[in-house]
């Protein structure tokens, strides 16, 4: 029993434990159904909107939002933090202005307001070619060409200027924090929980405190972006440094390195792979956030997209969406290629050869500048020349609405009436104590008292803070979406993994789709289903299915070759091999994929509030528009805590399972 409490149930008793837990939860539900459940165990006071005043009554037991409000305003006003934030804000504005001027004009160099698009295109293509080859070169060129021709050049450059400011700062901060955490255990211990919350906090929840502290505007978007992009950089820097074998550090010491030399010349370079991966992640996160930061006034493609979406101009939105996607894929390709670039040491090349790409870029850019003098189209594509096919998209959407709407509506009603609504009502019916018992019990079974306290404690916060029903609505959408994702994604992954060529193609597509900023996934769904409740769930499914597929493929691929050979020699057929060997061995990894799917679902559900939900996301949106900092942060924490509980349970299980299989 002591053992259980410390470490969770031993695997062979687990099935029974889970059964008992289910029985308990069912019993609690029955009690409520029979009317025997005391009210204080069934439901705690909640926020509700009073229709007559239009405000919200604070009716929770734990007035966390008011407390937070007080803390934040104390920091801001009484401690004079606002002076600091204003300073940061102003300096950032200056920085962004520099990039803005470089990319968008104000410079007046060579008789142009700003570099002509053709010159930038030439530079981008040479860069792509130098880093990877003609494919990447074409991708970069194609992206910029698309942006220029579709009349989105200005917005693209604004977005790039934001990135140019946010990315280096994020990398620098992340690197510093990562190194500090590596050097000082205390820093790490303080950072880890903050980072887990930060990585599960919905995008929008970040925006609220940033708005309150820094005001709205272009530079605020950059700040939100930086805060959002730093955690993965810290995590990967720390991971990389941790992975440096102690012997290598010792070799550095024996060579007579001082501390600084040890860090910069031995440890950081040895952690190069992880750090570069971190850089790539920072760029992708920044791009995703720059789009969302449009909500607080960051200009650029995201702002434009939001504008058009709110006006329900689907065709134009799609056009912008494609530009964002292209940009994401191109930036991902460039940063990866740069990370994987091998240095060539054999070279004692002549000067000209060593600088051939920079020279080529400069030459082509100069050519483009000259050409743009005589053909202004190469400088700016005027509005009337811009190629737009928004009308085509719109026509397509209309066509879909006219021809498919009956079928789609029937489908929608069927889903809502028969599956979604009952599921939601069931979750809402559950007394909160039953849900606490469920997550706490799972914690106890899988990880002992610590896990039980953590998971039930996190959920208890939601109940006490007065957001229970909203949270259950979020939960039901996540549960349903996850279910569908697993149902489709895992078999799809298995099928892909059956053949090597298919597997690598599947991974390629997963990689590509994952670079898309999450907000983009809303577009096709709106196109098909317009703005309604089902669209939100579908957007979540489309986005969250990626990790389910990817982890399944990876898990199946990582089954060691010798094991394949062993079971083949034991006389297994293809099907037997799958059931007897591959699935059991890959299962821990697949479960990590399911976990990621759940995390993605939580993050997307909140974004999907944009197309109409009535869950926590909707409230977060409200809080954002009201600049209600306490409420917004509490709501964000509610989402984050649910995600963290699931994450804790699944990773625990998976890690233990891997250990049992001897895979660590």
């Amino acid at each position, binding site marked *: 029993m002591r053992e259980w409490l410390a470490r969770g149930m031993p695997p062979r008793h687990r099935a029974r434990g889970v059964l008992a837990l289910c029985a308990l939860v069912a019993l609690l539900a029955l009690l409520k159904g029979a009317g025997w459940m005391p009210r204080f165990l069934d439901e705690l006071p909640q926020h509700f909107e009073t229709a007559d005043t239009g405000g919200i009554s604070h009716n929770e037991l734990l007035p966390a939002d008011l407390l937070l409000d007080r803390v934040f305003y104390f920091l801001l006003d009484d401690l004079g933090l606002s002076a600091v934030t204003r300073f940061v804000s102003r300096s950032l504005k200056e920085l962004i202005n520099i990039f803005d001027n470089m990319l968008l004009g104000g410079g007046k160099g060579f008789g142009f307001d700003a570099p002509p698009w053709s010159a930038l295109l030439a530079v981008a293509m040479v860069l792509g070619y130098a880093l990877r080859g003609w494919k990447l070169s074409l991708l970069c060129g194609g992206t910029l060409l698309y942006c220029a021709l579709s009349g989105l050049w200005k917005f693209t450059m604004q977005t790039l200027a934001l990135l140019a400011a946010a990315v280096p700062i994020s990398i620098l901060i992340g690197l510093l924090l990562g190194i500090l955490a590596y050097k000082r255990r205390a820093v790490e211990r303080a950072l880890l929980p903050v980072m887990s919350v930060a990585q599960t906090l919905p995008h929008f929840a970040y925006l609220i405190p940033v708005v309150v502290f820094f005001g709205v505007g272009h530079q605020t978007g950059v700040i939100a972006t930086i805060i959002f992009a730093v955690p993965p950089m810290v995590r990967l820097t720390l991971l990389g440094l941790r992975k440096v074998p102690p012997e*290598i550090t010792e070799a550095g010491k024996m060579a007579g390195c001082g501390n600084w030399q040890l860090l910069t010349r031995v440890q950081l*370079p*040895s952690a190069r792979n992880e750090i570069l991966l971190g850089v790539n992640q920072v760029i992708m996160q920044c791009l995703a956030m720059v789009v969302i930061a449009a909500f607080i006034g960051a200009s650029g493609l995201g702002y434009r997209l939001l504008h058009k979406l709110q006006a329900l101009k689907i065709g134009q939105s799609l056009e912008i969406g494609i530009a964002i996607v292209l940009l994401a894929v191109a930036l991902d390709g460039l940063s990866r290629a740069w990370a994987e670039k091998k240095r060539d040491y054999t070279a004692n090349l002549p000067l000209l050869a060593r600088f051939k790409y920079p020279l080529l870029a400069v030459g082509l850019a100069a050519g483009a500048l000259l050409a743009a003098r005589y053909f202004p189209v190469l400088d700016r594509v005027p509005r009337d020349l811009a190629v737009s096919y928004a009308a085509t998209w719109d026509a397509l959407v209309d066509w879909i609405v006219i021809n498919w709407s009956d079928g789609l509506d029937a489908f929608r009603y069927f889903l809502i009436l028969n599956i979604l609504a009952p599921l939601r009502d069931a979750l809402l019916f559950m007394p909160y104590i039953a849900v606490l018992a469920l997550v706490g019990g799972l914690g106890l079974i899988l990880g002992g008292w610590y896990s039980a306290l953590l998971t039930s404690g996190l959920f208890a916060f939601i109940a006490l803070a007065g957001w229970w029903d909203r949270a259950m609505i979020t939960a039901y959408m996540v549960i349903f979406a996850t279910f569908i994702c697993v149902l489709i994604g895992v078999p799809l992954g298995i099928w892909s993994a059956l053949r090597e060529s298919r597997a690598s193609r599947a991974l390629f597509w997963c990689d590509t789709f994952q670079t898309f900023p999450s907000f983009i996934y809303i577009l096709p769904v709106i196109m098909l289903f317009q703005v309604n409740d089902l669209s939100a769930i579908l957007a979540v499914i489309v986005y969250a299915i990626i990790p389910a597929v990817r982890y399944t493929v990876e898990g199946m691929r990582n089954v060691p070759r010798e094991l394949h050979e062993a079971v083949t020699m034991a006389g297994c057929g293809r099907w037997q091999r799958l059931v007897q060997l591959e699935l059991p061995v890959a299962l821990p990894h697949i479960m990590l994929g399911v976990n990621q799917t759940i995390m993605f679902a939580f993050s997307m559900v909140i974004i999907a509030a944009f197309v109409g939900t009535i869950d926590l996301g909707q409230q977060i949106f409200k809080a954002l528009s009201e600049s209600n900092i306490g409420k917004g942060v509490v709501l964000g924490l509610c989402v984050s805590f649910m995600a963290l509980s699931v994450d804790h349970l699944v990773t625990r299980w998976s890690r233990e399972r891997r250990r049992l299989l001897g895979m660590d």
Partner: protein
Amino acid sequence: MTAPETSEPVIRCKALYKVFGAEPAELEVDGAGAVDPRIFARDGVVAAVNNVSLSVRRGEILVVMGLSGSGKSTLVRCLSRLIEPSSGTVEIEGRDLLAMSERELIELRRSKMGMVFQHFALLPHRTVLENVAFPLQMRGMKRAEYVARARKMIELVGLDGKDNNFPRELSGGQQQRVGIARSLAIEPDIWFLDEPFSALDPLIRKEMQDEFLRLQSMLGKTIVFITHDFDEALKLADRIAVMFNGRVEQVGAPGDIVLRPATDYVRKFTSDVPREKVLNAGAIMDPPDGGELAERSVRAGERIDAVAEYVLGERRPVAVVDDGGKTVGVLHRDHVIKILFPRAENSGETP
């Protein structure tokens, strides 16, 4: 190869402990000053180095032997202060290593110490040349100088032409040779080698051992060499230290260790070592008895396995002479047989 007995100790440690998983204050020592490993094992504490006192003289090769996990690597890490010993003293050329400041330590490593690591520990982002040049760069040497010097070292270990390869492109044995070249680059006086030849195949290993001895005869460094291959130890060692569970069970010349084991453990450890590889003629000769002798004589320093064939083929005893050619004893055939076939003799005595 034999070190001058009189020269001063370059490395000396006294009552050295390294305990993993406990604070030094909690140590309990028995009468002899050693920690009882059994008490600790319960609490998950490992005494990796347990009351070790040693000294290594200038120009001497001390080979540290012992099974896996007996604390060999931990001992040299304490001697080079890569890890802080839990207690005890270490002196390098008479200076207290443990009292040195960070600066002094770095200075010492830059100028005097070299180390070859068990798992190579090459910097993955640097080429062979850059790895070898690394300690030189840390010293602040000029580019042209360190490139030339690193090239020379790479040539020395027989890797010329691989200058621009990355470690991951080399085999295990080649990587270890890069490690050796790197540790030699600064021409250290004190050289720590942690199983440097373990990753090499037998042929290259023998070549490297010979090369190592040749180098040592030229350079005369003070060396601590770790291995768990007894043949290697016998070939290279001036003295051998046998470690067991963190303790040094015995330190002495190879012959001493084999012939006069200090503890049961050492006896068991050395029981399979072929005696003829350890002993020389002088160690088993009888005093001259004036009888009839074979035509050829052997020198007292020659190992038994080198002279056995001749002695066994001779009916008469063989004279043993010293370096000056003076007869100091005689070698009887049955004596040599006893050394070569110790078991045969035993089985004759016990039924």
